[in-house]
Each structure stands twice: as structure tokens, then as C-alpha cells.
């Protein structure tokens, strides 16, 4: 039932624990500010040099990418060993050594689809956090219908020429390279898409940050004006990018769902309600709001139990549980409901934008509420999620 015998695993755990205790810099025990997120890359700023030290030590062991082959700089760990490593990292309350779209999204598909040369070239810098990647997928006219993308890529003999525009490119203004879906055949839809990698410093690339309804954001619009791309930076075959694109989306969704849109942070809903609405007989004084908070909290608990069950079942069945299909949809609904109730519970304290007169936690909650509206849009809209459940899981057919 396991990849390695318990005794070997026990030994691995002991070694790992010892190494981590020796190598995790204690100065990182302080809470991580948002600015301290270790995204790496050429322009990385390390407000605490120990964060860089931690990255370098982990990268040297390949433990930023624990299960990738050692040949590409990874840790070469089995799934079981990786679980032990993650458990030990949690035990230590360690900060992540590296956060990276390269690790979470690009790397896994390169391992599957790239040439040996490409793997050698691109994977080790990801492991070491030297190159920071961004994702060139959505376009103004291609949101839910991603395959409708129009960014043109023309074969110019010795190079490709890219023209067009992407949108929702997270951290495009911070990233070093981009993995980018481009149209290489305008006569077909899905079969006319290719998967291209290029440097964001290439002339003609221009990212512009997007301001959201919740304020500044990591998102950018990214414009391509006659961007020349070497031909060996195509992954997979020409016009064969759609399969790679979809596979990558699976990794992205796993990532989003696991986080549950970070719902847990900040003060608890019921405590906010008690503080701002008042308490009567130990209960939130507004029974209508109390009932709706309980309903939400029960939904959230059911969601958490479903994530756990889906994981257990997927592991047991060595394939995804049907419950997995609903997680993104339910996570978005849950976080949005929570955010709405939070702003409602805060009353007028939930109606601030910035400045004096509002509690900083309340201002954060209001911004989070606005930001939560994107949960049912980004990474596949809820409408598309429901379509997928109806068709792939329930077997309902397309309208003719």
C-alpha cells in the first residue's frame, strides 16, 4: 500500500526533521508579510536575507520541487517521502522556501511535454527560484472560451513573431519569462493553438498592471507588439498546444481549490457579528443574521469535509473522486458567502475604503469581500464549472 516500507520512511522522517531543524533560519519564525512572499526571479527583493538563504538551502536539496527528478534539480522524492517532508515543514511552521507558477504550473507540464533540451534549460532555474514565470492565457475576447484566443504567432522562418494581447497575467510586471498560448492557425479553433515560452524582456512585450474593484492587484494586461521568439521555445508540436494548456489548467485548479481562496484568515465571522451586532443570551443578537451565519458555517464545514473525502477517495482509487469536480464551484460560493456575511456583520464599519474611522481589519474585510467576487470568475467561471459537472460527471449532452 505504500511506496516505501514504514521503517525506511521513519528513517527519512528523522533525517528530514534533523536537517530542517538545522537549516531553517529561525529569523523566519516571524509572520510573513505579503511583501515577503518568496517569488524569486531576477528582480527578487529579500527584505530578510535569511529568506534567500532558506531558498538556497532548500533548492540545493531539490526540495523546492521535491518530487521532480534529480536530473532537473528536483528532490527525486517519492509521493510518500514528499508527504513526510510536507508534514515536517508544517510541524516547523516553516515559511515556503519558494512560491512559483514555474513550480506549480509550468514545471509539471514541461516534465510531460517538453524536449530533453527544454527540460534541461528551464527546469533547474525554476527549482532554484532564479526565473519567475507568468501565465499568458486569457485575452479580452477569450475568457470562459479560452480556445477563442487570437494572439497571433507567425512563423518567420528562423523565428516566430507574436502580436496581440493577454489579460489577467498575474505578476506580468514582476516576471522574467512567460508561458503563453498563441494562435498559429487561424483556420481551426482548438487545433490552431501553440504553447510558447519567451523572455519578458524581449522587445515589444509590455505589461500594464490592472486595478481591480478591490484596489491594486497582481494582474496585468500584457501587450505583444512584434515580439520575436526563437523557434526552440515552442513546447510540444506546432498547433498542439491545447492539450498542454488544458493539462496546465488542471494543475492551476488544484492549486486554487486547495487554498479555498484563503478563506480562513482574519477574525471569525461569528466573533465579528458578536462584536458589531451584539450578544443576547450568549447568542448573536440578530437571530436572522445568526441563522444565516450558522448556515454558512455549516456549508463551510461540509466543504472542508468534502475536500478531505475527495483526497481520501482519490488516493484510494488512484484517480480523482467525483467529489473533486465540485470543489472549485463550492469554494467560490463559500468564500463569497462568507465575505458577504462579514461585510453585513460589520455594518457601517464594513463600508470603508481607507483612512481613519475604520478598523484596519474591517477595511481588509471590505477589500476581501470585493476581491472575493472574482472567485467565481478566475480559473474557470462557476458557469463553466457547472457545465463541466453536468457534461463530464453527470453525462448530460450539449444542446443541439
Amino acid at each position, binding site marked *: 500500500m505504500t511506496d516505501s516500507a514504514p521503517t525506511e520512511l521513519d528513517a527519512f522522517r528523522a533525517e528530514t526533521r534533523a536537517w530542517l531543524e538545522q537549516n531553517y533560519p529561525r529569523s523566519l519564525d516571524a509572520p510573513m508579510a505579503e511583501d515577503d512572499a518568496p517569488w524569486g526571479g531576477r528582480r527578487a527583493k529579500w527584505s530578510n536575507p535569511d529568506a534567500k538563504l532558506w531558498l538556497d538551502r532548500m533548492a540545493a536539496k531539490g526540495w523546492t520541487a521535491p518530487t521532480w527528478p534529480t536530473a532537473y534539480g528536483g528532490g527525486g522524492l517519492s509521493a510518500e517521502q514528499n508527504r513526510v517532508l510536507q508534514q515536517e515543514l508544517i510541524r516547523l511552521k516553516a515559511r515556503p522556501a519558494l512560491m512559483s507558477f514555474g513550480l506549480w504550473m509550468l514545471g509539471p507540464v514541461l516534465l510531460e511535454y517538453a524536449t530533453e533540451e527544454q527540460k534541461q534549460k528551464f527546469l533547474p532555474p525554476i527549482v532554484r527560484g532564479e526565473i519567475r514565470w507568468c501565465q499568458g492565457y486569457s485575452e479580452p475576447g477569450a475568457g470562459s472560451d479560452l480556445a477563442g484566443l487570437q494572439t497571433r504567432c507567425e512563423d518567420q522562418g528562423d523565428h516566430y513573431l507574436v502580436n496581440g494581447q493577454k489579460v489577467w497575467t498575474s505578476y506580468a510586471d514582476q516576471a522574467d519569462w512567460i508561458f503563453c498560448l498563441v494562435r498559429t492557425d487561424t483556420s481551426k479553433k482548438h487545433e490552431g493553438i501553440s504553447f510558447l515560452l519567451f523572455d519578458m524582456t524581449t522587445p515589444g512585450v509590455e505589461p500594464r498592471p490592472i486595478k481591480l474593484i478591490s484596489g491594486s492587484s497582481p494582474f496585468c494586461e500584457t501587450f505583444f507588439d512584434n515580439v520575436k521568439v526563437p523557434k526552440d521555445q515552442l513546447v510540444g508540436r506546432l498547433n498542439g498546444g491545447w492539450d498542454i494548456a488544458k493539462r496546465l489548467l488542471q494543475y492551476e485548479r488544484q492549486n486554487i481549490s486547495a487554498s479555498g481562496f484563503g478563506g480562513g484568515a482574519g477574525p471569525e465571522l461569528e466573533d465579528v457579528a458578536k462584536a458589531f451586532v451584539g450578544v443576547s443570551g450568549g447568542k448573536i443578537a440578530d437571530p436572522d443574521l445568526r441563522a444565516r451565519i450558522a448556515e454558512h458555517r455549516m456549508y463551510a464545514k461540509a466543504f472542508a469535509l468534502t475536500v478531505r473525502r475527495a483526497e481520501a477517495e482519490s488516493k484510494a482509487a488512484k484517480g480523482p473522486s*467525483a467529489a473533486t469536480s465540485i470543489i472549485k464551484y463550492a469554494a467560490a460560493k463559500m468564500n463569497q458567502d462568507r465575505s458577504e456575511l462579514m461585510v453585513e456583520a460589520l455594518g457601517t464599519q464594513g463600508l470603508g475604503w481607507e483612512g481613519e474611522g475604520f478598523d484596519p481589519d474591517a477595511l481588509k474585510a471590505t477589500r476581501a469581500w470585493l476581491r472575493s467576487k472574482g472567485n467565481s470568475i478566475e480559473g474557470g467561471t462557476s458557469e463553466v464549472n457547472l457545465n463541466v459537472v453536468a457534461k463530464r460527471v453527470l453525462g448530460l449532452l450539449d444542446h443541439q
Partner: protein
Amino acid sequence: MAVLTEEQVMLKDAAKGWVSERSPVSALRKLRDADVDVGFDRAAWAEMGQMGWAGVVVPETYGGSEFGYRSLGLVLEETGRTLTNSPLVSTALFAASVLTLGAGAAQKEAWLGRIAEAGAVIAPAIDEHAHHAPAATALAATRSGDGWTLTGKKPFVLDGMAADAFIVAARTSGKPGEEAGITLFLVPASAPGLSRTRLKTVDSRGAADVSFEGVAVGADTVIGQADQGFGLLDQALDRARAGLAAEMLGQASQAFEITLDYLKTRVQFGQVIGTFQSLQHRAAKMFTELEMTRSCVEAALDAIDSNGNDVRALCSLAKAKASETVHLVSNEMVQMHGGIGMTDAHDAGLYMKRARVSEALFGGASFHRDRYATLMGY
């Protein structure tokens, strides 16, 4: 979220096979039309006993299999699918729990073996109002000599006509609304002064109004400590809630599957109606609710079996979620079937009627939302 053991898989498969052969929905229809007063098929109940289903949570010492609540939940889910009427909930789930958790050796000896072989039906005579409120118990039990005298009424007692005995919540001190001062009694149906009136319920489950007019019982009928019965009652009720939630999950799952089949076959406007996006989205939302409910039901049953410290909250969660889901799905079943779903000849109405009865038993979504919030301290 424990993966099923081999024994559990076998139990589930056996239940699935048995209900499809011996107790499809048409069996409920037959029972209803024959107007059977006990509300279930005694021959089928005997078979359940032979298969060991009545003793799944009964200790081995008393002839049960001691497989636990998750296992009983598997059986209930399958019997729920076809709306099978039986004393599983009243007797194998609730009464077996009360007795196992709180009865003395003699009481266990006398009754648990009979439960395990489906040789006795024991009904819960708990609530006294139209809404579930165990602490509101008012039925008076007063000391008389060595024993007690019970006076009061228990309306809508599940399996009340079939019951050989009742587990009766009575007030021995304090006031209605207080948890302290409640005592549980095990009262034989034959006790003088006990009478019952059959209720014809909307879902054809068996039920009765039970009346206690100076029913004299011995001291040996007290289960556990006098005045201290509420804790035991609440523990047993939680087991009943989780088990009933499993049955409701089965009801809702089957209702959904029947509806999904209809969406795939019914043609209107030259299209199978399941191709219409609004119906697709509603189906996907129902599926989401069913998956969430399953997680809650399994977690509650697992927590009971592993003696977890969050049993109460999880049981309220399971019952509330199952109530909401079976409510939604049974309504959608009728609506998506259109006119045919409104006819008595179709099964949709049977699922909807059963749904509302299940929702109300042992507390509906509103009761359990309130209980959950209180347990969580807000």
C-alpha cells in the same frame, strides 16, 4: 474519512441487492394501498433480522455484530434509496443506541438480543409537541412505592403501532424546557394504561399517538439514572440523527438518479431536456449538495464510531445538510418530471412525502442550525 472495510463493502452490496429484489419502491406502494397498520412488512423485517441488520450496532455479547454506525449507515442509505419502511431507525438505530449506551445489564440482557434478531420493535416516545424539542418533555413520572407512574401523551411516535416497548422520556423533576429532571423509561406496550391510536402519515411510515394514563412501571424500567436521562437521550438522538441522515442521503441520491435519467430521455422541443443549460446547472448544483451531504453523513458516523469529540456538532450538521438536500432534490424531482411527476402513479411524490417526514424527525434544518450555532458558542 475512512475507506470502507471489506466487511462494509459486503454489507453495502448485500443491502443493495436485497432492496432491489425484495423492497423496491413498489413495495412501499403495496404497503400503502394495503393500509398496513404497523407501517412495514413484517416478513421483510424478519429477513433484515436474519441478515443481521437489526444488530449492526448491538454488542457481540448480546448477539449483534458490533459493526458500528458507519456500517448501519450503509444499510440505511440503501433502504433509503427505495423508501423501504422498517423499524431500522426506531429500533436498530435509536433504541439499540439508548440501551447499549445507558441500560443496565438486566435490561440489555432482556432486550438487545431481541433487537438484534428483529424480535422486538422498540419505539422512541420522546417529543410531545409538533416540533422536535426533547428538553420540553412534560409527561409526568411520579414515584409510587418502588416504582413510578407515568401520565401524559406522546404524539407521532415512530413505529408506535408495531412497538413491543417504548423508550419514554419523562419528567421526574424540574420544568419543561430544562435538561435536568428528565428520566428515560423502557415501558412495555402491554402496560396497563398505555394506549395508542394509529396515525395515517403522508409517507405511509408507521406512527401512532401514544397515551399514558397512570401507567405503573417498576424501578427496573428506568434506563440509567433518574433525573439524568437527558445526556443519554441526546447521545442516542445524535446517533439516530446521523443514521437517519444516511437514510435521507439514500433517498436524495436515488431521487436524483431517477431525475437524471429522465433528463436524458424526455424529449421536448426536439431536444432531450437534459441539454437545456438551466436544467444542467440545477442538476450540477444538486450533485454538489449531494456530495457535500455525503461528506457530512460519513464524517458524523465515523465520529460516532471513533468516539470523536465533535459528535454532536457533526450529527447536527449531517441532519441539517441531509434535510436541505433531500428537500431540494425532492422538489426538483417533481418539477423536472413536469406533469407526470404530479401523478400518484409516478414515484416522485413518494420521494417528496418521505423527504418531509424525514426532515421533521429528530429536528429539521432550522432546529439543527440553531443547535450547531449554540454548540459553537454563538
